[in-house]
């Protein structure tokens, strides 16, 4: 068995020392209880403090457990909270892009649609909240697979069906797409799930930069892609999707990156 990492063991001991009741301890108390030099103890405490696991009382200078420890147990962002925060921005994305907007989160081995804004024309459309989409072929699913490790492993384990002759199914090709997605900050799906349909999606992060969902637009290939030979996605649509994802992330407390 590999040797344990001493500083992690010491950090764990400090957290145990501070745990239990309303305990606040000074640096020298902590150092002496654990048999550490003050400088060593201070270095570890400072690191824990930066991660939010330990907080220092301004007045007394004593240390106590940080709020981040409590949040560790409740990392889950309620999807309805996510929808409420995204509502205004998703409406605006639909308006500016002229396409329908979807918000998705990971659910089992697919993407669960938690919010849907109609395409802003007068056509009859059906609300698709609650529908599932595949992880490996849709833009929403690729974003989740690229940013969320749980989604990534689900996508690798899932049966990746070929919906069209453009669907990428084999693991190497899929991994490459995820690399590209991470590098560009958005994912695309041009007729990989439905013939004639394209989509663009970008990641939504919460205040701790955890990926909590993806938001994107879906519409006819002819409208999402340029009419020239390349048929590349329209850059202004990509920008609009990414703006929306950033705005929602900002509302959830994620800092600007």
């Amino acid at each position, binding site marked *: 068995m590999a040797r344990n990492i001493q500083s992690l063991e010491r950090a764990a001991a400090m957290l145990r020392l501070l745990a239990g009741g309303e305990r606040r301890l000074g640096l020298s108390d902590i150092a002496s209880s654990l048999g550490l030099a003050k400088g060593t103890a201070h270095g570890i405490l400072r690191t824990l403090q930066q991660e939010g696991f330990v907080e220092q009382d301004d007045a007394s200078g004593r240390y106590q457990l940080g709020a981040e420890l409590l949040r560790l147990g409740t990392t889950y962002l*309620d999807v309805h909270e996510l929808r409420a925060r995204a509502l*205004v921005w998703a409406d*605006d994305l639909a*308006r500016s892009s002229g396409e329908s907007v979807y918000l998705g989160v990971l659910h089992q081995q697919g993407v669960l649609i938690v919010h849907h804004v109609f395409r*802003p024309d007068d056509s009859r459309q059906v*609300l698709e909240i609650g529908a599932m989409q595949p992880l490996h072929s849709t833009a929403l699913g690729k974003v989740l697979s690229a940013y969320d490790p749980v989604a990534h492993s689900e996508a690798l384990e899932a049966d990746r069906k070929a919906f069209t002759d453009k669907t990428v199914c084999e693991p190497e090709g899929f991994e490459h797409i995820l690399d590209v997605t991470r590098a560009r900050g958005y994912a695309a799906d041009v007729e990989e799930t439905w013939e004639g349909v394209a989509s663009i999606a970008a990641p939504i992060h919460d205040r701790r930069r955890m990926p909590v969902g993806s938001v994107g637009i879906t519409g006819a290939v002819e409208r999402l892609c340029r009419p020239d030979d390349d048929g590349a996605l329209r850059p202004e649509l990509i920008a609009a999707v990414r703006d929306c994802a950033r705005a929602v992330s900002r509302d959830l407390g994620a800092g600007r990156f």
Partner: protein
Amino acid sequence: MTDAHTAGPFIAAIDQGTTSSRCIVFDRDGRIVSVDQKEHEQIFPKPGWVEHNATEIWTNVQEVVAGAIEKAGITRDDIKAIGITNQRETTVLWDKNTGEPVHNAIVWQDTRTDALCRELGRNVGQDRFRRETGLPLASYFAGPKARWLLDNVDGLKERAEAGDILFGTMDTWVIWNLTGGTDGGKHVTDVTNASRTMLMNLHTMQWDEKICESIGVPQQILPEIRSSAEVYGEITGGKLGDLLGGIPVASALGDQQAALFGQTCFAEGETKSTYGTGTFMVMNTGDKIINSYSGLLTTVGYKIGDQKTVYALEGSIAVTGSLVQWMRDQMGLISTAAEIETLALSVEDNGGAYFVPAFSGLFAPYWRSDARGVIAGLTRYVTKAHLARAVLEATAWQTREIADAMTKDSGVELAALKVDGGMTSNNLLMQTLADFVDAPVVRPMVAETTCLGAAYAAGLAVGFWNSTDDLRANWRRAAEWTPRMDAETRAREYKSWLKAVERTMGWLEDEE
């Protein structure tokens, strides 16, 4: 999004609301370009009393207008007009020579005029002025609030009789200040705000001499009643005069009427419902003044320039979003309002439980102040998730009851319900609404329907938009929920709900 907004011109709208003042700049498509907002102090001098400092509000209005213009990165040449929507019924009296309010504004929620209203009812009761004004004698409305000020501020009656005092709801106060204040400010109100004073006759659209006398408000303090969409004057003087001088002030609408307008409910029978802490449902009744026998209010919807007045029926539900807040803050069953949906979705149905939140009595269509809240149908089987369902269903059933009352009074069946407000992000609630009301529920793409309504009216007044058809073309459906519940289930559930409602009544035995 900023890309598409570089090209003007624009319309600005001020929303002078109960908790804050906002200004939003809109483009020709009705999209939001910029927003600025500032809260003002809620003053509670005694239990049941609520006041605002009108001077603070005017300062905030100037700041948010300047702020929104700055955020949009535009100048006065890009703004074609400015419109106003406001908290209704909140009343301020001020000295026309100094521009100083004589007292804090009395807010619509303030109940200090309860006794006065009972006294005014004399032997007739609540409905003494209903035929003329469409309103019951209740503490919300502005006329009795003005009378209270005249009675209770030292020397005010004499100053009013001497012609030194002006009355206004918040639209009037803001317009007077915008158009120059002591230096020739226009003393006007619009038909929708005037219809909430209890002083205007719905049939003549003028101040009713007899009622003014009965309530005790001298007519010389009252503003001129104008339409909701016309140029009242231009921005003149002060800080805003430097920034936006000369821009037409071109609309005023009470907040719920502005939402009706913003939702483009221009045809008879079209109805909107705004879901906030409480819910306000308004139905366009065209040129008909419909007397309600079901406890709804008859009010003015809007009036565009010299076109015919459009009337409306209004029903309000006191407790909707606030019931979700109650589950969060008082019961601690959820940690955020959005979680009510998560909890409710963890079960299939209400488990037999019904929640009637008659926290301060039952409002339309019952008007029973002796009622108090009830959770009925409890068994060992019921969990907090069932109660979460019952909470959402309470909002939907109360909407159904108002819709039924509107149909009964107007003879018009609800074809679709246009919704806005914070609770529209609750998908389960919206589906439940469609199921219970048995009509499609439609959410528009711009959530800010109140400000949008004021912007639309101002834009119509200056020809920025040509007609209400132009505005309809701007309206975009963001989502639509269609009824999925079978008629039998709906009827059975409605019956249970009505049984639960019955059980709230008569809880208070000795009404003071």
